[in-house]
């Protein structure tokens, strides 16, 4: 009995997840009969089995749900938001009852009357009208003799009877306990359903009405009963469908077995041990020149590798498994936030080790929640931005270079780098100078800083500033990475890079003075050997910091010996040294080691609690000779030593490089009505126009002009700097610089457009007053570069925020 119950719970949980998914899909495609049938079948199975197991509360709840589903299935009720809502609530209620059963072995005290009442309310939706129509239908049923409708009518009556006879359920159970075992029940489920229908059909030919408790016994005996003579087409179709899916599920159950996760983990551990034992034997056999031993150990080697691969494969699960709940979550969230969001998933079949999956689950959910909550804008905002009202979240999983990547992108507002920086400044994480030097990409990384959230409002969904840092730590813990790309107004993409598996990884074995260390191959870029007599020339120092010129780039160096508290002078010239080039977050660095051995498959073992706080090590492993070697956490190492702390310096250098490359920026020189010269980056200028002054119209919020069938708000620099107000001239031509940003346009009125000049970006200095992006010296005069964003913000404010959020 316990086994049956357990089996029932496992299957029901799984099926309910599928129900969630199906319901969401159904809401999009109300005509999807297959999905509807799936949902019906699940609820029906649960109902049937609970009756059999004597779980009366659950049975009566699912029964009501089934009635509603039946109406949907017969097409007498269209699937709507309302029906989806109650059915999702039903799924939740069933789930919670199941977990009660799981915990105590019995039904809990909560019989979820509220959900039942909600479903009944939907069922009785049209009140008397409905019943009247149903009666009418029933009449018609008898006239037309269409079995499905008839069945429905009868089932309704059955439901009524059930309600009345709830106390007598016991009898039901007595009868049903003679039913076959649950496995059979599952397999036969669809047949049951069919049989019940045909059974009902059979009954329907008799005018007399059997009480429900007899119905079951008939259902059982009527398996062999005659099929309905000529069922109407839709019913036949349904049956066909259910039959085929039944067959496929049967096939699945024949070819696959459920395996306890614990057993899998144990197998994996054993394989890990085996790999280590193999490594030892291999090492041993390489010393012993015995042909038979060599042969045997090679066979062992091959077999172990294959076994390892097989067990790893068994632990793989499609990424889709953790994404199953996403559509439901997104739907619920977006509804509660009043947003419209569509979700698209690709590559859900991509497989990932299940331990990793567990670790990735939370970060993934977090990012998706964030996308819904903060990424995608409210519909009004989207409308104002000329975006489609429905936001889109895309989740894409794919293999790349021995890793699984999962990308979550939204087409929402994107991250605001300036706000991130401002926030970081407020919180005192960085000073203004550091922030100024920070590239946009680095600034985006700020969201991983604990305690930094740019959400304007803390909602119950997110915005508390805990989270992204946890996401990052989670990812790093499994040797993964997370990347962000964001463009304002266009959306944000998060890319999770996850190693394929955790337990066994290829690693490079290196040595310092005596000790062996393993460096996971994932973080390796290349190896450089420096011969001992070249060390002095090739390892240079920049203000005390050792560097190496790697193809023209300066590679900061860390001496492993020194970091680990050994010999502080790593390149004493007695020994060749190796530079292991390691990929950091954005930047490579070199790890100087004494010796480099082979790459080896190592089994990652966790470090005990005592050693967890040391940032240099990711774990330990056992080498071929039985010695324990520590696995280096290159990221932790770099961060601790501060190579990456210097990233701001390097970023500064990079920026210089960038500037050097795009040295010249084309700018438009113009004279404002106040007579001041301003410059404006040509890249932000859409067009230069001349309008007759007479065409300018005044609206409440200022002056506008009709331009290409749109209203172009006009703005003057004097408004930005609050030096006065601008009035259009009575007549004549008006010079307007049409500026565009993210699909929005505004017109900057100027007295004169002077010239287009190239300004060296090296000569630019940050602007000192609001509205000025930069100051530069061009052809001997100081020119202020307008901050176009400020112009847009000003116009937006004037128009009451409708231009830009």
């Amino acid at each position, binding site marked *: 009995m316990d086994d049956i119950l357990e089996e029932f719970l496992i299957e029901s949980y799984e099926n309910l997840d599928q129900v969630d998914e199906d319901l969401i899909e159904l809401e999009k495609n109300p005509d999807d009969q297959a999905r509807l049938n799936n949902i019906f079948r699940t609820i029906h199975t649960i109902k049937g089995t609970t009756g059999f197991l004597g779980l009366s509360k659950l049975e009566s709840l699912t029964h009501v749900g089934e009635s509603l589903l039946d109406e949907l299935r017969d097409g007498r009720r269209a699937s709507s938001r309302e029906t989806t809502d109650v059915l999702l609530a039903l799924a939740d209620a069933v789930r919670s009852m199941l977990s009660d059963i799981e915990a105590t072995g019995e039904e809990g005290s909560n019989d979820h009357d509220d959900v039942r009442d909600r479903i009944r309310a939907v069922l009785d939706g049209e009140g008397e009208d409905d019943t009247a129509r149903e009666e009418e239908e029933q009449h018609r049923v008898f006239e037309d003799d269409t079995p499905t409708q008839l069945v429905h009518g009868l089932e309704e009556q059955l439901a009524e009877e059930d309600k009345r006879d709830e106390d007598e359920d016991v009898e039901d159970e007595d009868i049903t306990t003679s039913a076959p075992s649950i496995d059979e029940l599952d397999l036969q489920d669809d047949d049951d359903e069919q049989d019940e229908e045909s059974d009902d059909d059979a009954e329907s030919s008799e005018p007399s009405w059997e009480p429900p408790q007899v119905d079951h016994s008939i259902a059982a005996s009527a398996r062999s009963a005659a099929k309905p003579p000529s069922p109407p087409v839709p019913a036949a179709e349904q049956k066909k469908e259910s039959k085929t899916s039944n067959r496929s599920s049967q096939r699945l159950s024949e070819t696959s077995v459920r395996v306890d996760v614990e057993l899998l983990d144990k197998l994996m551990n054993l394989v*890990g*041990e085996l790999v*280590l034992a193999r490594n030892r034997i291999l090492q041993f056999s390489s010393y012993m020149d015995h042909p038979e031993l060599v042969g045997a150990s090679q066979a062992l080697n091959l077999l172990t590798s294959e076994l390892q691969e097989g067990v790893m494969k068994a632990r793989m699960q499609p990424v889709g498994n953790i994404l199953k709940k996403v559509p439901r979550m997104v739907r619920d969230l977006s509804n509660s936030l009043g947003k419209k969001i569509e979700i698209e998933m690709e590559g859900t079949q991509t497989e990932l080790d299940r331990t990793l999956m567990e670790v990735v689950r939370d970060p993934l959910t977090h990012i998706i929640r964030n996308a819904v909550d903060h990424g995608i804008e409210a519909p009004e905002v989207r409308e104002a931005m000329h975006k489609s009202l429905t936001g889109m979240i895309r989740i894409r999983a794919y293999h790349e270079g021995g890793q699984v990547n999962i990308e979550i992108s939204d087409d929402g507002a994107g991250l605001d780098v300036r706000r991130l920086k401002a926030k970081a400044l407020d919180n005192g994480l960085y000073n203004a100078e550091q922030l100024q030097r920070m590239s946009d990409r680095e600034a985006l990384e700020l969201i991983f800083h604990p305690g930094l959230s740019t959400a304007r409002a803390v909602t119950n969904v997110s915005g508390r500033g805990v989270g992204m840092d946890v996401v990052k730590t989670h990812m790093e813990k499994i040797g993964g990475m997370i990347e962000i790309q964001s463009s304002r107004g266009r959306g944000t993409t998060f890319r999770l890079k996850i190693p394929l598996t955790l337990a066994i990884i290829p690693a490079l074995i290196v040595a310092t003075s005596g*000790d062996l260390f393993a460096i996971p191959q994932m973080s390796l870029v290349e190896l450089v050997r420096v011969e001992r007599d070249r060390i002095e020339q090739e390892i240079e120092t920049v203000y005390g910091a050792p560097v190496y010129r790697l193809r023209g780039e300066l590679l900061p160096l860390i001496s492993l010996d020194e*970091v*680990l*508290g*050994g010999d502080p002078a790593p390149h004493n010239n007695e020994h060749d040294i190796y530079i292991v080039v390691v990929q950091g977050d954005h930047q490579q660095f070199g790890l100087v080691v004494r010796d480099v051995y082979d790459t080896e498959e190592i089994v990652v*073992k966790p*470090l*005990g*609690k*005592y*050693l967890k*706080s*040391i*940032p*240099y*090590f990711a774990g*330990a*492993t*056992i080498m071929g000779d*039985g*010695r*324990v*070697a*520590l696995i280096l956490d290159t990221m932790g190492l770099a961060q*601790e*030593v*501060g190579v990456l702390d210097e990233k701001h310096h390097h970023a500064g250098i990079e920026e210089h490089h960038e500037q050097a490359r795009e040295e010249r920026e084309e700018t438009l020189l113009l004279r404002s009505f106040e007579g001041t010269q301003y410059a404006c980056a040509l890249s932000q200028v859409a067009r230069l126009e001349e309008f007759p002054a007479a065409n300018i119209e005044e609206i409440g919020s200022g002056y506008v002009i009709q331009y290409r069938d749109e209203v172009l708000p006009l703005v003057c620099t004097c408004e930005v700097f609050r030096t006065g107000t601008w009035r259009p001239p009575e007549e004549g031509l008006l010079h307007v610089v049409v500026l565009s940003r993210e699909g929005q346009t505004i017109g900057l009125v100027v007295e004169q457009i002077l010239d287009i000049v190239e300004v060296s970006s090296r000569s630019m200095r940050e602007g000192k007053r609001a509205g000025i992006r930069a100051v530069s010296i061009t052809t001997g005069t100081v020119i202020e570069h307008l901050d176009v964003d400020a112009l847009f913000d000003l116009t937006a404010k004037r128009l009451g925020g409708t231009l830009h959020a």
Partner: protein
Amino acid sequence: MLEHNNQFCTFHLGDLFLGIDVIQVQEILRPQAMTNVPHAPSEVRGLINLRGQIVTAIDLRKLLHVTPCDEAAKEEQMNIVVRTSEGTVSFLVDAIGDVLDIPGSLRAPLPNTITYDSTYFSSVFKLEDRLLIVLEPERVMGRAALAPSTRRLP
């Protein structure tokens, strides 16, 4: 600890005579090859390979502030492998004593004047010729989280 369960695995550490509840002891090992862990807390001697499982070895002398023994003696120290809720650890001790069956009536609370760091001890047993101090591995591991690593920040 329950009254009826008074079997202790005893060991010597300098002048100290200590015991660990036998239930918690997994095995006793001869000296093992040790892998040094840079920047580990000072009481961590290193890692040992226990049939494929990696176990942290803790220098009990360091932990209990007993004068350290010389290098040669260090090499000779025995491992008491103990199971705790935080995983398996090995305690390095000078010498292993007998497993003693001690009646609960001999138990006494720790004297308040105890000079060693008493955090890791739970009680004392008044044996005929000497006193046995009971070491609680769980308490040792409980403190592990607080143990400062010796790494120096650049």
